């Protein structure tokens, strides 16, 4: 496996996500997920940050390779950061595993967010929190909690100007201008 060419694929059964299978895949997928590289020794079992939601569309790649790790997902939340103060993050989380559940507000240490994601962890940022088991080929099982901040596109000048024009005309239509 070439470092720079590696990326994640996610495999899951069509209905309830039981397992996410991580495997290395072809290079041109990398751009899509922007996950950076992984090497052979340490493979992150974190759910990909760019995929929204992380257990959404199955991308199943045919290939002879056996999965290196299997991440058994027990629980996933989608969160929105409300406030960062000191080393603490306050957020509202929505249950994606059992959507009937009410939203919860939690606080946790900023250390729970991977260092590479921390610059993105600002009020209003969206993150995914998954809890599950990391089952390795050698039979080892680790309990895993993974918080990944979603990478989102940026505002363009064009979009902001369009919104301004829209707001001006909406104000006129309401009769406020």
């Amino acid at each position, binding site marked *: 496996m070439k470092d720079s060419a590696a990326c994640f694929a996610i495999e899951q059964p069509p209905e309830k996500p039981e397992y996410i299978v991580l495997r290395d895949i072809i290079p041109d997928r990398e751009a899509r997920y922007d996950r950076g590289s992984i090497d052979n020794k340490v493979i992150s079992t974190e759910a990909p940050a760019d995929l929204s939601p992380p257990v959404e569309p199955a991308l199943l790649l045919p290939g002879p390779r056996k999965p290196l790790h299997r991440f058994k997902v027990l629980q996933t939340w989608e969160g929105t950061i409300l406030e960062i103060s000191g080393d603490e993050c306050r957020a509202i989380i929505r249950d994606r595993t059992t959507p009937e559940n009410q939203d919860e507000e939690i606080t946790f240490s900023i250390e729970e967010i991977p260092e590479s994601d921390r610059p993105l962890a600002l009020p209003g940022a969206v993150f995914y929190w998954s809890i599950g088991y990391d089952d390795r080929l050698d039979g080892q099982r680790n309990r895993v909690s993974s918080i990944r901040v979603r990478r989102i596109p940026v*505002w363009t000048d064009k979009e902001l100007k369009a919104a301004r024009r829209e707001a001006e005309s909406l104000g006129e239509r309401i009769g406020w201008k």
Partner: protein
Amino acid sequence: MVVDSCLDRESRQPIALKYLTELGIDVATSVKLFVITHWHDDHLKGAADILSACRDAKFVCSEALRSTEFIQFVRICSTRSFMVSSGVDEFDRIFEKLQRRSTGERPESVGPDLWAIADRRLLYLPKNNRSFNVEVFALSPSDTAMTLALSEIGQLLPRAGTPKRRAVAQRPNHVSVALWIIVGNLNILLGSDLENHRDKRLGWRAVVLSPNRPRGRAFVVKVPHHGSSNAYYHKMWSEMTTPEAAALLTPFASGKRPLPSQDDVEKIRSHTSQIYCTGRPQGWRPPRRDSTVDKTVREIARTRRVVHGPMGQVRLRLSAQRGLDDPTIELFGEAQHLT
């Protein structure tokens, strides 16, 4: 009149509409004023439905929300990013309704919508065929608050090159519309979410100091900002309320500390023992999940609570027959008398 909005948990209807309709009131013609005190999520859910149902009501909000910057902010949040489930979404629906109303859905005779600013009279119903007159005044925002709010709203707008994050409620809240209601010779103070400020031209100090505010003392107070200590101003209580006024509290389980705290309640208690709360401030316990999940969550979360749960209502009624000075207070659902 209807002030702010939230939804009934079962029917998902705006609770005020449900209540008034069940009393047999024709909301289309009977509601004269619909006030949005500010744009935060916890005060807005279902507001657009109220606006469409209450055809003859004038819509009132702070003038700061009329700015192109605020409309732009709402449009940006609602249609151009991943920002969901905040008060901003509801405001987008409000704009849509206002637009429809302006194109002839509403009788001319209703008159224009109103901008709230300190000491402005928003409603006057003379005695005529009832035994008392009714007046409604805005006590805030002050002019200084308005100037500040306009620049703050400008700062909410994202800049090019910054990520499309979700809109989360900003604090503090200078533009919240506090209200003073006069019914005959009785006064009611609705404190909205107005807080204190060092600057005496802002917040509760500005209200108390204003030479132009309506005089008198309120016998009912909707305690400002969920009873928080930064909205407690002793002169609001000592100069604007009667001793033993009925204090109505709406708890807020979101935020660093749930509101009100025991300390907050004690401060209010130094002015009155009649404190009624519509629900439980401490929030609700999260549901049980898989034991591995629960164990992991316990290791990671420092605090954790469900912030929306069953609500209660406090009903205060005045009877013109029995005499307006003899109110009855009833509690429903989770509501409680804080003793």
